[in-house]
C-alpha cells in the first residue's frame, strides 16, 4: 500500500495534555519530522500498526487551546482542519484531553465536532483525576457528544490497546451540534455555503472569522469570502468571545451531568510547595544559575570526550581515504572537502544532544515554565520575552537549534529580536578559535592566587557576547516600533518526574533536525570552499611546486616539509588566496594580513574551520589539524614582515577574538534565519549589524593596543 492511501490520524490537544507522550507511545522510533507544505512548522508524523495488521499514519499537530490560532505554530492546525480537500486533511482526529482539566479540552473538542470532522476523545492522565477523587461517566459523555471516548495513561502506556482498537473502527461524524450560530451571522454563513459549497455552517462561520487561515483557497474563492464578509459587515473576531462563553456554558452543563464526584485539589499541594522554593526570590535564581552552570559544564567539559573521538575518527578516515584511493581531484574532494565537511557537522552532535537532554528534562518536569516566570520581567525590559531564555541558553551550543526554538514566542517583535541577538551568544564553534588565540596571547599564569588568566579571558569573551546580545536587544527594542501587544498568559504545568523516553525522542528529533538542516549548508559551503582553496587561475600545483623548489633548493628540506610548503604556496595561488589578498586592504586596519584573510573566508562555513585553515597556511598541514601545539608554535613564530616582530601580537590576537565574538561567521545560521523569518530582510540585516559590530570593535581594539 502506498503511504498516501494510509489512514491518517491527527492528534490535537492543549499544550501539556500529554499529546507528545501519546504520540511516542503509538509510534515509538517509527517517527519523522518533516514540514507542512509551504510553511516552516515542523510536522511530526509516524506509523503505528493496529491489531488487524493495518498500518496507520499518526500526525502530531501543535498544541492549541482553541481553533482560533494565536501563534505561527497554532495557525497550521486551523489551516489543515479547514481545508477539507487537502491531502493533509486527517481521516480521523483524536482530541487528547488532560483529564484533570477536561473542561478546557472540551472547548477544542466541541469546535472540531461542529466543523463536521470525524473525531474521538482521549482522556489522558485519568490516574491523576482518580487521585483527586473525581470520576466521569464515560458512556454518558460519549453519548452526549456523539464521539467515542477512550481513557489512557500515556506515560505508562495504559489504554493504548483500546485506543488502537478504536482506530480500527469506522468513525462517524457526530450529529450533535454544540454551538448555535448567532442570528446576525446566519445570512453570511448561508451566502458563503451557497457560493463556495462549504460542508457545514460552523466551517463557513470559521471562513468568515479567520481570513488568515484560508491560504489554501484559490484567489477567486478568497475574494468571494472577503466580499461576503464585507457585504454583511462581518468582521473577524466579532463573536469569538461570545462563542467561547456559549461553548463553556454548554460544557459546564455537560460536566455537571457526567462528573460523579467533586474534587478536593489535595494533589496539587506538592506542586505549590516546590514553587515556593523554585520561584523564591533568592533560591529561585540561585537554583536557575546552578542549573545553567551545570548545563555549561556538561556542554564544555563532558562533551569534549566524544567530540575528540569524532574529530580523530574523521581525521583518520580522511587520511585513509586520501591514501587508499588513487590521487586526483575526486579523491581530494572526498578526502579534503566532503569528509572534513561531514566531520564539521557530526562533531557538534554530542553538545546538541546534551543540551537538548537538559532542555527536554526541564520542559518535561514543568520547570521551564518557572524559568519563563522568573525571567519575564527582566527580559521584557530589553524587548524580549521570558520565553527567550530557552533560545539564549541553547545558543551556547549552537545558534541553529536555538533559533528554531524561538517559535514558541507568540509575539512577532519579541521573536524577531530573539532571533536577531541569539548568534551573539558564543556558540561552541567559537571555542576552538578562542582557545588557540588565547593560548597565544594570554600568559598561562594565575592572578590573585587562583584565577587562571586564560580562563578569565575565555569567560570574559562569553560574557562580552552575552552583554552585547542584551544591549543589541535593547537597541532593537527602541528601533522596531510595532503596535502588537505582547502576551505571557501561560499555563504553569504541575511538576512531574520527566518521562525518560520522551527525553530520548526529543534528543533524537533535535539532533536529526540539526544534522539535516545545518548539515546541508555546511556541506555545500565546504565543497565550495574546497574548490576555492584547491583551484586557481592556471595550474597552481605546478606553479607552487616550481616556486617552492626554486627558493628551497639549498634548504635541504625533508620530503614532508617540502610538501607542506607546496601546499601553503598552492593555497596562496588559489582563488581563496586571491580573495584573501583582495580583502587585505579592508582587514589591514584590524591588524590582519591576507593569510588571516583566507581563514576569515574559509571559516564562513563554520567558524572552527579557522584553525584548520591556519594549519594549512602555515604549512603544517601534515602534522594534523588536531595537533594544537604545533599550530600554536608555528603561529607564535610567524613574523610580520613590516615590523619584523611577531605576527600575532596581543593587539592582533584581541582584535581577532573580538571579531569572532561578534561576527556572523556562519552560513547555516543565516540559512536558518532566512527559513524562520521567511525572507532575506532579517538575515541580511543581522549579517550587516553583526559584521559592523565585529569590524568596529576589532578595529578599535587593534588601533588602541597597537
Amino acid at each position, binding site marked *: 500500500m502506498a503511504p498516501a492511501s494510509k489512514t491518517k490520524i491527527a492528534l490535537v490537544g492543549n499544550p501539556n495534555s500529554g499529546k507528545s507522550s501519546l504520540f511516542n507511545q503509538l509510534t515509538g522510533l517509527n517517527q519523522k519530522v518533516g514540514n507542512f507544505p509551504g510553511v516552516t512548522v515542523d510536522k511530526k508524523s509516524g506509523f503505528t500498526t493496529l491489531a488487524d495488521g493495518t498500518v496507520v499514519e499518526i500526525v502530531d499537530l501543535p498544541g492549541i*487551546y*482553541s481553533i*482560533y490560532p*494565536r501563534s505561527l505554530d497554532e495557525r497550521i492546525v486551523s489551516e489543515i482542519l479547514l481545508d477539507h480537500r487537502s491531502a493533509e486533511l486527517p481521516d480521523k482526529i483524536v482530541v487528547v484531553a488532560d483529564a*484533570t*482539566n477536561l*473542561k*478546557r479540552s472540551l*472547548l477544542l473538542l466541541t469546535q472540531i465536532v461542529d466543523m463536521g470532522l470525524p473525531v474521538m476523545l482521549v482522556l489522558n492522565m485519568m490516574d491523576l483525576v482518580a487521585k483527586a477523587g473525581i470520576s466521569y461517566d464515560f458512556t454518558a459523555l460519549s453519548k452526549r457528544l456523539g464521539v467515542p471516548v477512550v481513557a489512557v495513561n500515556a506515560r505508562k502506556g495504559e489504554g493504548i490497546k483500546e485506543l488502537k482498537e478504536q482506530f480500527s473502527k469506522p468513525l462517524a461524524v457526530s450529529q450533535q451540534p454544540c454551538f448555535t450560530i448567532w442570528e446576525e451571522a446566519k445570512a453570511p454563513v448561508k451566502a458563503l455555503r451557497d457560493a463556495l459549497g462549504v460542508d457545514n455552517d460552523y466551517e463557513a462561520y470559521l471562513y468568515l472569522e479567520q481570513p488568515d487561515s484560508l491560504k489554501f483557497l484559490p484567489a477567486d474563492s478568497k475574494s468571494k469570502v472577503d466580499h461576503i464578509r464585507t457585504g454583511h459587515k462581518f468582521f473577524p*473576531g466579532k463573536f*469569538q*468571545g461570545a462563542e*467561547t*462563553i456559549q461553548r*463553556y456554558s454548554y460544557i459546564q452543563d455537560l460536566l455537571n451531568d457526567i462528573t460523579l464526584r467533586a*474534587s478536593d*485539589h489535595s494533589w*496539587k499541594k506538592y*506542586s*505549590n510547595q516546590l*514553587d*515556593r522554593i523554585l*520561584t*523564591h*526570590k533568592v533560591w*529561585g*535564581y540561585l537554583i536557575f544559575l546552578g542549573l545553567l552552570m551545570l548545563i555549561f559544564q556538561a556542554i564544555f567539559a563532558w562533551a569534549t570526550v566524544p567530540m575528540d573521538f569524532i574529530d580523530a575518527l574523521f581525521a583518520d578516515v580522511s587520511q585513509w581515504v586520501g591514501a587508499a584511493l588513487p590521487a586526483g581531484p575526486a579523491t581530494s574532494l572526498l578526502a579534503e572537502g566532503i569528509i572534513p565537511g561531514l566531520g564539521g557537522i557530526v562533531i557538534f552532535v554530542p553538545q546538541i544532544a546534551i543540551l537538548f537532554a537538559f532542555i527536554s528534562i526541564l520542559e518535561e518536569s514543568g520547570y521551564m*515554565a518557572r524559568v*519563563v*516566570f*522568573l525571567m*519575564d*520581567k*527582566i527580559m521584557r525590559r530589553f524587548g524580549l520575552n*521570558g520565553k527567550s531564555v530557552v533560545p539564549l541558553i541553547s545558543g551556547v551550543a549552537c545558534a541553529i537549534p536555538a533559533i528554531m526554538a524561538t517559535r514558541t514566542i507568540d509575539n512577532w517583535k519579541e521573536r524577531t529580536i530573539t532571533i536577531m541577538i541569539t548568534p551573539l551568544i558564543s556558540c561552541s564553534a567559537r571555542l576552538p578559535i578562542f582557545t588557540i588565540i588565547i593560548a597565544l596571547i594570554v600568559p598561562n599564569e594565575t592572578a590573585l592566587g587562583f584565577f587562571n588568566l586564560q580562563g578569565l579571558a575565555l569567560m570574559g569573551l562569553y560574557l562580552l557576547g552575552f552583554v552585547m546580545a542584551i544591549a543589541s536587544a535593547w537597541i532593537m527594542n527602541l528601533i522596531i516600533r510595532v503596535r502588537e*501587544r505582547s*502576551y*505571557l*498568559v*501561560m*499555563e*504553569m*504545568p*504541575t511538576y512531574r518526574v520527566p518521562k525518560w523516553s520522551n527525553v530520548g525522542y526529543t534528543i533524537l528529533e533535535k539532533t536529526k533536525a540539526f544534522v539535516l538542516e545545518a548539515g546541508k549548508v555546511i556541506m555545500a559551503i565546504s565543497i565550495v570552499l574546497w574548490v576555492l582553496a584547491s583551484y586557481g587561475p592556471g595550474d597552481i600545483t605546478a606553479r607552487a611546486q616550481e616556486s617552492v623548489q626554486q627558493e628551497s633548493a639549498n634548504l635541504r628540506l625533508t620530503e614532508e616539509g617540502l610538501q607542506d610548503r607546496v601546499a601553503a604556496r598552492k593555497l596562496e595561488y588559489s582563488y581563496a588566496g586571491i580573495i584573501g589578498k583582495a580583502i587585505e586592504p579592508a582587514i589591514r586596519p584590524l591588524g590582519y594580513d591576507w593569510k588571516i584573510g583566507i581563514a576569515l573566508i574559509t571559516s564562513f562555513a563554520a567558524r572552527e574551520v579557522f584553525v584548520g585553515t591556519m594549519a594549512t597556511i602555515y604549512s603544517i598541514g601534515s602534522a594534523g589539524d588536531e595537533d594544537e601545539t604545533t599550530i600554536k608554535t608555528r603561529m607564535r613564530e610567524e613574523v610580520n614582515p613590516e615590523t619584523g616582530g611577531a605576527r600575532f601580537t596581543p593587539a592582533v590576537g584581541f582584535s581577532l577574538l573580538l571579531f569572532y565574538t561578534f561576527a556572523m561567521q556562519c552560513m547555516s545560521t543565516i540559512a536558518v534565519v532566512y527559513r524562520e523569518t521567511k525572507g532575506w530582510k532579517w538575515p541580511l540585516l543581522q549579517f550587516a549589524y553583526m559584521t559592523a559590530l565585529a569590524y568596529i570593535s576589532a578595529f578599535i581594539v587593534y588601533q588602541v593596543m597597537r
Partner: protein
Amino acid sequence: MGLVRNVAQMKPGEVGVVSGFTDDHLSVKLMEMGCLPGAPVRFNFSAPLGDPICISVAGYELSLRLEEAATISILN
C-alpha cells in the same frame, strides 16, 4: 467594597470570582483557557520581581503579567 477590583490588586492567597474583563482581545484568550466570568480565581504568588504572577483558575495554575491580570475584574 463598592470599587471594582481586578486580579492584579489581589494579595497572595486571596480568592475572588471573575466578574468580567476590560480588554476584549485578551478576554478571548483568557476565556478560552477557562478563565470565565463566574469562575473562582486564587492569587497564588508573584514572581520575585513582582511581575508576572501565578493564579489558580479552572483547576490549574496560570501565569500572566500584571498588566494582563489587571484586565480581569473580580468580585469578592
